């Protein structure tokens, strides 16, 4: 049951080159993957490999000088300017990368209510308080401004805001960056839990090791290209089950596998 699919997807930016000439700088190429219901798919790549842009492309919030090609489909329907208004917040939701994505001048409870209203969900106080409770957030956290929350709390608040619309597809952009192991675990198991409730989760991260225990499948991205898609369980032993050389190299370079630098990569 495919929920979201990217096929032949690419992205480039129009930039000024010198004073007057402009040129297209390609950022992403040949991106193709799918997410089914009940699945956590991890999109793994180094910082600056264009992972976040994939999330932004799905929500149609790329900067105006970006050019897109290929197709993105949700439930077989193309995701574009026409269909997006009905999809954003209601069918798919984004867990943003950093606290700067929350309104700095509004209290968190208010922003949660905004998100609920935008997704067409009930906005009464009890429902929202119960929703926050599920993420271990109390009234004090709700009354705080975003910058007053600690890193872990802020991340859970963003998760709460993203899930209040009860969307089928959740795209989490670096949900564990800047978190200690304990908080990262809380966040990732929440995402896993959502997938177990028949939702689709796209986990965008730079850390293969952190993603593996929670993901079903892993897509590797390097320099704006897909470097193969692997089952999470194939990352095992010496990586014999891995199909791509890059995945094997990445796997063997992990600390627990002895930092082996693969020669054949």
């Amino acid at each position, binding site marked *: 049951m495919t929920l979201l699919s990217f096929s032949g997807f690419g992205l480039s930016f129009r930039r*000024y080159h010198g*004073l*007057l000439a*402009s040129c297209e700088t390609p950022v992403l190429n040949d991106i193709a993957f799918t997410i089914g219901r009940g699945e956590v798919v991890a999109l793994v790549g180094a910082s600056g490999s264009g992972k976040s842009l994939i999330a932004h492309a799905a929500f149609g919030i790329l900067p105006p*000088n970006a050019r897109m090609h290929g197709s993105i489909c949700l439930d077989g329907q193309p995701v574009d300017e026409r269909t997006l208004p009905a999809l954003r917040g209601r069918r798919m939701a984004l867990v943003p990368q950093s606290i700067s994505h929350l309104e700095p001048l509004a209290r968190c409870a208010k922003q949660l209510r905004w998100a609920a209203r935008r997704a067409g969900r009930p906005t009464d106080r009890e429902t929202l308080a119960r929703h926050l409770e599920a993420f271990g957030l109390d009234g004090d956290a709700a009354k705080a401004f975003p910058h007053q929350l600690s890193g872990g709390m802020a991340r859970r608040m963003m998760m709460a805001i993203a899930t209040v619309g009860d969307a089928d597809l959740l795209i989490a952009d670096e949900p564990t960056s800047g978190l200690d192991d304990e908080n990262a675990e809380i966040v990732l198991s929440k995402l896993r839990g959502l997938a177990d409730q028949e939702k689709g989760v796209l986990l965008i991260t730079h850390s293969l090791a952190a993603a593996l225990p929670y993901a079903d499948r892993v897509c590797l991205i390097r320099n704006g290209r897909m470097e193969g898609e692997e089952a999470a369980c194939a990352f095992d032993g010496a990586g014999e089950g891995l199909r791509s050389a890059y995945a094997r190299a990445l796997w063997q370079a992990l600390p627990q596998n002895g930092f082996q630098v693969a020669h054949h990569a």
Partner: protein
Amino acid sequence: MAELGERQTLEPLILPRMDNRVRSFAAAAVCLFLILLIPVAALMAGSAGVAPDFTARLVPPDWAHWFGTDQMGRDMFARTAKALTTSLWVGLFASACSVLIAVVMVLVSAASGRWMDALVSLAIDATIGLPHLVLLILICFALGGGPFAVTLALALTHWPRLARILRAEVMQIKQADYIISARHFGKSWAAIAVGHVLPQLVPQMLVGFVLMVPHAILHEASLTFLGFGLEPTSPAIGVMLADSMRYLTAGKWWLGLFPGLCLLLFVLCFDAVGNGLRLIFDPRTAQT
């Protein structure tokens, strides 16, 4: 605050179909040409606009006198061209002096440490804390009016905004590694200020200069209009508009309309040139 760095541009509206930057450069070039045309027109007019002709007083605009004539029969078009030429010189000279003041202030404050820096920032506050026009009136009052007084007054009042921008820039440059290492090699702050900091300020200075000219020109006109600036006999936009006030109620509209309109267009042209320059020198605003 209306900083020089935050000005908006008009050019994208004039030629909507061209590329943003081509458009800005084209507009800047056309405007520069128009500005250069004014002194030429003033020169070609000869004595027209200055010599009175009492047979043709207060003539409405026609083919012989595009902008009409004034109460002494002087051709308003030639007079406007001459007035704008005066404005141009006053504006350019005053702005150049003002930029110089700003740069010296900032460099001295950068080179001589905390006390001087506090003093400069206080001077900026004091100058900004007084309405520009009042300070201009005071200075012209002190110097007794005339082109020299106006130019000096403009030079003494227009530096704070550029100084603020430059000061921020210098603060940044001072943190740069090579400056710090130059300091470790025993170079004095004065040597660093002139050798390393000054060259980096040139683009900001140039853009600041061109964007300051329209401000200076507008203030010159205002000051002259109020009776503190250029002599009431000289061709100047402020004088012409002040004179026109006596004839407006009699319906002599051209006396009030054209000089002001030309001044407005003149100022817009300068702004366009300034923005074109900024596009070249300040890549941050050029990214979109």
